[in-house]
């Protein structure tokens, strides 16, 4: 029988991770978001590729828009529109004697969302797996298991039913956390600790439904 950490030590460690993540990485901790970026790696990669030149040169987007506008409407009409627009903005202190180019330069390009590359999210998920291995080694428990322990086997068996239950349950976890916008870490730890209404509601609901199903499973397998 493994001796697990007492509640206060676990609480300290989890709170340390939640706060440390926010302080060091600058985002709130949330594992289902990493799943989302990993399962959507194709979209993530496409977005990263398209954004790359805009990150390198923030005005690339505006240059491209201006070029497209010129191609569509011709120089005369584009200039007229830009002059009209800058005349309208003349009340602004930095818009005096504005030429179209100056108007274009004075406007700050909208910053792109600071996106974490999807590969980093994969690293995050894989390192959790390695953390599990290290923990098992340190507890002298590292070995292959073909079930999830005696309690799970008692409810779901160890054959086909167990595999189906895990596949189905896993799909519900994946679909549900995306639909609900977060999981135990994102809603439960990062959200509840900041009293975010959506997170408090989500945590109450997923905890409550897990309680209901757990009692149900226990009753029907008796």
């Amino acid at each position, binding site marked *: 029988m493994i001796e697990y950490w007492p509640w206060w030590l676990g609480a300290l460690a989890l709170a340390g991770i939640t706060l440390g993540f926010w302080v060091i990485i600058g985002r709130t901790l949330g594992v289902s978001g990493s799943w989302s970026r990993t*399962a959507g790696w194709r979209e993530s990669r496409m977005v990263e590729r398209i954004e790359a030149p805009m990150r390198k040169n923030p005005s690339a987007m505006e240059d491209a828009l201006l070029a497209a506008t010129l191609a569509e409407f011709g120089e005369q009409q584009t200039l007229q529109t830009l002059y009209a627009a800058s005349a309208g903005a003349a009340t602004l202190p930095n818009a005096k004697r504005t030429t179209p180019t100056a108007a274009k330069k004075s406007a700050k390009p909208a910053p792109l969302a600071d996106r974490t590359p999807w590969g980093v999210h994969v690293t995050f998920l894989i390192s959790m797996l390695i953390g599990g291995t290290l923990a098992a080694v340190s507890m002298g428990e590292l070995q292959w298991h073909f079930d999830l322990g005696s309690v799970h086997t008692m409810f779901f068996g160890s054959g086909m039913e167990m595999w189906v239950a895990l596949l189905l349950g896993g799909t519900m976890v994946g679909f549900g956390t995306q639909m609900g916008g977060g999981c135990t870490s994102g809603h439960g730890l990062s959200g509840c600790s900041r009293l975010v209404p959506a997170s408090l509601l989500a945590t109450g609901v997923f905890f409550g439904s897990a309680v209901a199903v757990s009692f149900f499973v226990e009753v029907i397998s008796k």
Partner: protein
Amino acid sequence: MTSLQQHLRYAAFGLLMGLTLSFIGFTNYGEIHKMFTFADWRLFLTFAGAVALSMVGFFVLARGQHITKKPLHKGTIPGSILFGVGWALTGSCPSIALVQLGQGYIPAVFTIVGIFFGTWAYKHVHREFFRWDTGSCE
């Protein structure tokens, strides 16, 4: 932050998560089941204590700062119900299945495949039918 720095930082926190979740027994189905049936309050207190300590921490560290709040939308309740049912069936929230596999629990492969498929499927269902702003977890 360069890309390498990001990889290293996320890897460090991933390792810490994997270790902590193992040491507190959050990866053990029996322990999770005892929490959900209130047969043992240890894990419940661990979680509640972590929320309380983080609340104090955010209050002190994040004073006056704006941190994005997840939006409440039509998917919050049905999604969370699905997640809760799945959690009770598998004993696994999104990080647990990975840690279980790392410890050598082979059935966790099925949970991982399920989570991956469910996450992928949601993207498509959402794009086709829902289109509400779910706010991502990152």
